């Protein structure tokens, strides 16, 4: 029985007397044509370049991130080919060093964070019941910065200027003396692009979540996925500045001769490590917490129940994020810091398992006796439990400052990080993509192919990464382009490389499934009978998201609609891009604001900023020239378009 059938009211008592608020709406029915004209994006190239529709921008983020995922996957495949047997001459050390650096850099900066951001940009406004993010033009600008940063990095790679000092770029290897040329400059500046983009997404999603919720949606009623995104965005704000500052210092050391990382002039190599890992550890939680949100988003439809323990779940997300900032030294246990300090970070690294453990227990409670419907999204959720929990266990081992000294910088860590990142983020991501694909595209994914994707990914993943635990214990360090035959590491490496083929197959099945969806039937508005707002509108949603902004009364508005427990807002302007702005805590409407429409200024500004950033790699003068070039687009972006832009507002002068 679906939740709706179960909750059909059978109450024989007379209905309560009509209050003024529950009378049939006095306003006219929504003019969908007018809404579409106000909120739609014009067709053609201009529309594509100027759009500020969060759904289009969100899909761009996701598609671009998946392209980078494929590129990172090809790099991984090359790594596995090279390591499949000892003393392979497939890749020389220079190329290998570039490839493994590009693999890590691509996956961390160009895939994992942007794909989560993209799903957030697409779904957060729908989940909170509004029509767009708070700063639409900024949203567009953020996407272009991400794209241009990624293109810059790969352009450099194509010209044999790919970074080759690891995704973590420790000094002095990454400094001017041991990495001459522009490879590391390109890497450092790419970070500026992508972190700027991430900070922009963070601001707009935080403001959207706090200020643009549908009436009735207090903070206790927002979906757990939205909580996860809110927490992640706050982490981005506090973590990204660290890597921007660090990469800025590296760029300065390399280009202007500053001495931040030069011990003979009072600099310190550990300054780099502290700044990088102060960002780097929260970074993995920035990737993983949206995954946790996705699990909570998918489970209810298949278990046909709300997630158990909402307050505990929210508190766990917040606690995990908070604690995530107190772990970074566990990446530096071999560096020789005082033991007492190291012990603190061991304690923190252990205790952070607790909030995630509580989340897992709450999901088990949700699933208890639920006989969940086994569909492809749910298959990925089950995989998450197996893979991520194993990764969490090895994380505890690595968190021990003593034991870590054997495991640090070996293939044991490679195993661990892939178990937690693929288990904790990629499996939930694929589950979410299968779940939300009908909503985003209006088409369905094939069920059998979905199961095949999950099965191949699960088997291939474990085959590739489980043997690496053993390789680490048997002395195989990370980031080696080859190894001696006498080490005996060959067979396990060969096994891991076979697994890589199976992973590649699973991704290809998913691609075929997605591309083939065009030929399949159109998707219903609510194929899964799910509990959140996005399922109450069409698949895909119209440009204006909801014909009328809903008024919610619980955490499960998707299930409340049939009971008539979801109200609506009437008399909103449909000739303007008008949104409701609410009070941050209880979600009650406060005022109405107008959002901007399509504009080319964000792209123009992104181009001039890109000129400035790329130019600065070659000469500081270009940085200044670029900044001056940025002035016209900034003015254009901000300069009022006159009375036409805001016809409803009174002129003050």
């Amino acid at each position, binding site marked *: 029985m679906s939740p709706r059938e179960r909750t059909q009211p059978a109450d024989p008592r007379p209905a309560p007397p009509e209050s003024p608020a529950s009378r049939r709406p006095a306003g006219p029915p929504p003019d969908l044509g007018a809404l579409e004209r106000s909120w739609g994006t014009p067709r053609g190239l201009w529309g594509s370049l100027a759009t500020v529709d969060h759904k289009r921008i969100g899909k761009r983020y996701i598609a671009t991130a998946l392209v980078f995922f494929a590129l990172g996957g090809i790099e991984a495949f090359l790594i596995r080919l090279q390591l499949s047997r*000892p003393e392979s001459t497939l890749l020389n*050390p*220079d190329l290998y060093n570039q490839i493994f650096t590009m693999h890590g850099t691509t996956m961390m900066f160009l895939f994992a964070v942007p794909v989560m951001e993209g799903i957030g940009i697409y779904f957060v406004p729908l989940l909170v019941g509004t029509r767009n993010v708070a700063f639409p033009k900024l949203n567009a600008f953020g996407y272009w910065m991400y794209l241009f940063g990624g293109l810059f990095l790969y352009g450099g790679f194509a010209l044999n200027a790919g970074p080759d*000092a*690891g995704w973590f770029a420790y000094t*002095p290897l990454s400094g001017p003396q*041991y990495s001459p040329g522009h490879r590391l400059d390109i890497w450092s500046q790419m970070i500026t692009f992508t972190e700027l983009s991430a900070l922009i997404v963070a601001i707009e999603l935080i403001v959207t979540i706090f200020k643009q919720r549908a009436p009735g949606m207090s903070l206790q009623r927002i979906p757990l996925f939205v909580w996860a995104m809110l927490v992640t965005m706050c982490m981005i704000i506090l973590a990204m500045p660290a890597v921007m500052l660090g990469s800025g210092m590296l760029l300065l050391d390399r280009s202007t001769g500053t001495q931040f990382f030069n*011990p003979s002039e009072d600099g*310190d*190599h*550990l300054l780099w490590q502290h700044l990088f890992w102060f960002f780097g550890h929260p970074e993995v939680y920035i990737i993983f917490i949206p995954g946790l949100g996705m699990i909570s988003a998918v489970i209810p439809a298949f278990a046909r129940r709300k997630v*158990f323990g909402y307050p*505990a779940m929210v508190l766990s997300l917040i606690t995990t994020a908070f604690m995530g900032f107190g772990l970074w030294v566990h990446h530096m246990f*071999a*560096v*020789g810091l005082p033991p007492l300090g190291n012990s603190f970070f*061991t304690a923190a690294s*252990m*205790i952070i*398992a*607790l909030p995630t453990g509580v989340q897992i*227990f*709450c999901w*088990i*409670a949700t*699933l*208890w*006796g*639920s*006989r*969940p419907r086994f569909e492809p999204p749910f298959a990925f959720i*089950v995989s998450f*439990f197996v893979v991520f*929990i*194993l990764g969490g*266990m*090895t994380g*505890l*081992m690595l*968190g*021990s*400052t*003593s*034991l870590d*000294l*054997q495991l*640090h*910088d070996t293939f044991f860590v490679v195993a661990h990080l892939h178990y937690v990142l693929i288990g904790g983020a990629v499996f939930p991501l694929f589950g979410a993509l299968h779940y939300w694909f009908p909503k985003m595209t209006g088409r369905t994914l094939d069920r059998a192919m979905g199961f095949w994707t999950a099965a191949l990914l699960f088997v291939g993943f474990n085959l590739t990464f489980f043997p690496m635990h053993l390789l680490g*214990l*048997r*002395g195989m*360090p*990370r*980031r*080696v382009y*080859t190894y*001696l*035959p*006498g*080490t005996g590491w060959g067979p396990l490496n060969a096994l891991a490389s076979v697994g890589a083929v199976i992973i590649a197959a699973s991704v290809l099945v998913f691609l075929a499934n997605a591309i083939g969806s065009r030929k399949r039937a159109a998707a219903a508005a609510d194929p899964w009978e799910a509990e959140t707002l996005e399922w109450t509108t069409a698949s895909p949603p119209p440009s204006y998201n909801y014909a009328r902004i809903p008024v919610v009364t619980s955490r499960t508005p998707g299930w409340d609609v049939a009971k008539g427990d979801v109200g609506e807002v009437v008399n909103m302007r449909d000739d303007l891009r008008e949104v409701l702005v609410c009070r941050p805590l209880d979600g009650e409407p406060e005022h109405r604001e107008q959002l901007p429409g399509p504009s080319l200024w964000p792209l123009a500004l992104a181009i001039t900023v890109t000129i400035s950033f790329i130019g600065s790699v070659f000469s500081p003068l270009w940085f200044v020239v670029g900044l001056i070039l940025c002035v016209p687009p900034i003015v254009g972006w901000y300069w009022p378009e006159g009375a036409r832009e805001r016809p409803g507002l009174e002129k003050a002068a």
Partner: protein
Amino acid sequence: MIGALALLGPVLPGGVPTPSALRPAAPQAAGLESLWWFMLWTCTAVFLVVLAVLAYAMLRPRTEEPPARRAAEIITAAAAVSVVILFAFLIATMATSRKNPNEPRPTDRIVQIIGHQWWWEVHYPGARPDELVISANEIHLPAGRDVVLDLTSADVIHSFWAPNLHGKRDLIPGRHNFFRLRPENVGTYRGQCAEFCGYQHAHMGFIVFVESPDKFEEYLASQRKPAAEPVSADASRGRQVFLTNPCVTCHTIRGTGASGTNAPDLTHLASRRTIAAATVDNTAGHLGGWIADSQGVKPGNHMPPHLVSSEDLLALVAYLRSLS
């Protein structure tokens, strides 16, 4: 011995056994191995229990939602058990690290290791400055005695890791890291650099020879002597080739006037089992090949190829192989 092992498959240079963190030969590594097993069994049990409960939750017949209070109690209990386990891990960790204090004491023997791209410079300071022994890539230590390694780097960050003896410790330019070892079992143990350091990070290995204290002192005494005088005509010619080629700008052979410090000290090269940082065995063929084309063995390493005539090369190899 090496011949017998060869029957089992390829052998590491120097005939050294394969490394493993699970075959400890020193109390430091043994303590870490015990911690490993404790954590592994506990974590495996937790993993299996949680997955079993999850499977049961999903497979059992459909019931109403569990009553909130009961579920909350069980979750709280599970969280409490988790805290106990995590705390146990913390205590076990702290107990293990307390057993391994690294600060050098006046009675400790110090061995200095300086990391280079892509080889290990080893110094054995003695009581007097003239007792200093300098070698490369093969480290001798006395069994059953505490040794404190003084680790630093001349270029980028490296990491010293011999899994059978202890965990790893980084070599950081501008810092000295002290690392206490007490190898117990006589034998040979392979180690490898464990911090990415550039092109030949993969081929920056080393061997630790743990020997009885007497043999250790013998080793130091023989290493203190200056280079052996060449006996054969070939070796004499080889020494001439060495001294008249760029070799002297990087290498030292004490007693010949060659005092370069960018590359391994060759004074007692023939006493080493391996060359190129434990990458290949120290044989005439490998040595000749290394001199003629080191880039073929370790592409990207800092030794340029040397074009010497074949007679000169053979003489040079003969000389170097006489430096025991």
